[in-house]
């Protein structure tokens, strides 16, 4: 009575042994007389076809295109700004002791360079910034994990931590000078107070952005407790964490400049902030502008050389980076 269904014909003519996956993916000859395709061969071919149809291959744009789209526009913008600056200088909109031309600034920087002090000044600031940032990284990460993971801690200090971000860290400078005097401790205290909240907040935001599904999946495969933190929580929070680090660096660099600018004393090594203050004291506008440019360049350089590549790499791996078209 079952044999009336010739079109489906599920029956004993298709034994289990014919369904081994090792069979090559042949197409039509694999069909049996009943019209039902041989399962293994047909399935493998079908699946390969579906995979091929559905897979999007991401291609990286050629180098020429990258240069044209990413490098040329900022170069043109900088040239334009320099041109306008030079124009304003040439038209004498302001006396030259107030608005020096680009070449005068360049000469001022060249003079510092020939004095042989400029590299040590930059290094002084960068090494202070880097050391402060590393300490802030450790403190901020611990603090961020505590706030993200423990509800009472979050309730207690979460709002304070976000509030601290909007407090300009230069406001701490007078307090730090009273506490620590004109020492390196003052500078580091200001840098830490500026950077730690950003890093901690970034980590908290990153943890909050983890999909609940990933946390559940982690628990199902056995990533609980510390192993959950290590294998799910931290990698899951990485995008938010990295933007926190970027902001943390920007805040430490800013705070450092504020601290160096205000806390100047012979005992403290000279950094870029002190260079700026020296320029102001001597009414040396080319030097002031040169110092500002250097501060800007160091900030941009570290962002471009360290943070941007790391962030791009993380986002690209997760498919979160849309390639610019």
């Amino acid at each position: 009575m079952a044999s009336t269904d010739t079109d489906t014909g599920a029956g004993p003519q298709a034994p289990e042994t014919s369904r081994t996956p090792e069979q090559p993916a042949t197409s039509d000859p694999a069909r049996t007389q009943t019209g039902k395709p041989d399962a293994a061969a047909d399935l493998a071919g079908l699946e390969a076809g579906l995979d091929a149809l559905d897979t999007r291959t991401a291609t990286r744009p050629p180098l020429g295109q990258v240069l044209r789209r990413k490098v040329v526009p900022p170069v043109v913008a900088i040239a334009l700004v320099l041109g306008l600056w030079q124009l304003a200088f040439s038209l004498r909109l302001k006396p030259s002791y107030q608005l020096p031309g680009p070449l005068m600034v360049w000469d001022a920087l060249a003079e510092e360079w020939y004095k042989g002090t400029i590299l040590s000044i930059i290094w002084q600031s960068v090494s202070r910034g880097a050391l402060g940032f590393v300490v802030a990284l450790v403190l901020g990460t611990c603090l961020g994990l505590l706030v993200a993971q423990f509800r009472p801690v979050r309730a207690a200090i979460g709002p304070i931590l976000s509030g601290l971000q909007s407090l300009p860290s230069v406001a701490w400078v007078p307090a730090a000078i009273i506490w620590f005097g004109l020492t390196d401790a003052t500078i580091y205290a200001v840098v830490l107070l500026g950077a730690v909240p950003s890093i901690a907040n970034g980590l908290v935001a990153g943890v909050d952005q983890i999909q609940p599904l990933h946390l559940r999946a982690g628990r199902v495969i056995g990533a609980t407790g510390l192993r959950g933190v290590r294998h799910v929580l931290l990698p899951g929070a990485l995008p938010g964490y990295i933007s926190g680090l970027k902001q943390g660096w920007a805040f430490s660099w800013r705070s450092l400049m504020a601290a160096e600018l205000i806390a100047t004393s012979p005992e403290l090594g000279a950094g870029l902030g002190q260079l700026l203050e020296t320029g102001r004291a001597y009414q040396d506008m080319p030097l002031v502008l040169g110092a500002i440019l250097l501060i800007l360049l160091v900030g941009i350089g570290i962002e471009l050389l360290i943070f941007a590549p790391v962030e791009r790499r993380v986002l690209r791996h997760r498919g979160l980076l849309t390639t610019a078209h």
Partner: protein
Amino acid sequence: MTTTLTTQTTSKTPKAQPSPASAPGAGVKDARPAMDEAGYAARIEHVSKSFGRAGAEQLVLDDINLDVAPGEFVTLLGASGCGKSTLLNLVAGLDKTSAGSIDVPGGRPSLMFQEHALFPWLTAGRNIELALKLRGVPKPERRAEAERLLELVRLTGAHRKRVHELSGGMRQRVALARALAQDSQLLLMDEPFAALDAITRDVLHEELTRIWSETNVSVLFVTHNVREAVRLAQRVVLLSSRPGRVAHEWNVDIPHPRRIEDSEVANLSVEITEELRGEIRRHGQH
């Protein structure tokens, strides 16, 4: 033709077991003896679950009794609000029962979700290797074992692929491989193919049936799709809604290989759908 059999009792008739082609996870501690001794892969006894504040609780599952035999494929079918996903979470240990007990002698079950739930910060292969690592597989063996599992789901060579580079069907296959990497004797599946297009879903039904017969894993598969339930299962369990109770059970004796368009699948689906509609209709009557 009467290949189907309608029962309302919780019969635990062992089915003709599909021949296991290979034992999974060779060389790692085997949870099978515990399960063989118990005689079931999962036993759900008088399980109830309610949500909400004390005093204003909502009963989601009411006195569920269900056994999954070793190597059996059971589908849990029900309309929305029947608590089928809740039941699966309880079996997976992601949530606690309000009453009753759940025994899974083969250790922590693996669970597949409707979304692939793969970690986007790892490659396809690393996702599988992480599950192996957390299971305690020593490092030198992980790579080869991950390759073997990828081969099992027919994704040879996809080890280094990023999750976002894979299609929806491929992601679910990697997720299946990761679930199998846990080497659990019980695989829980929560509508794993619901978000896929019909062609891909059809292909994955075949894949799942093949892998199930090759690994001899027990499967508890939740779905709201009657045809899917009949296509895959040895036994279909219908849950009523609000609260979820076991309303009916059907043993599916349609021989493999099955197709979702087979007339036997269709016939039984019609019968089950009628029952399901009756269950849903009851909610509009008071």
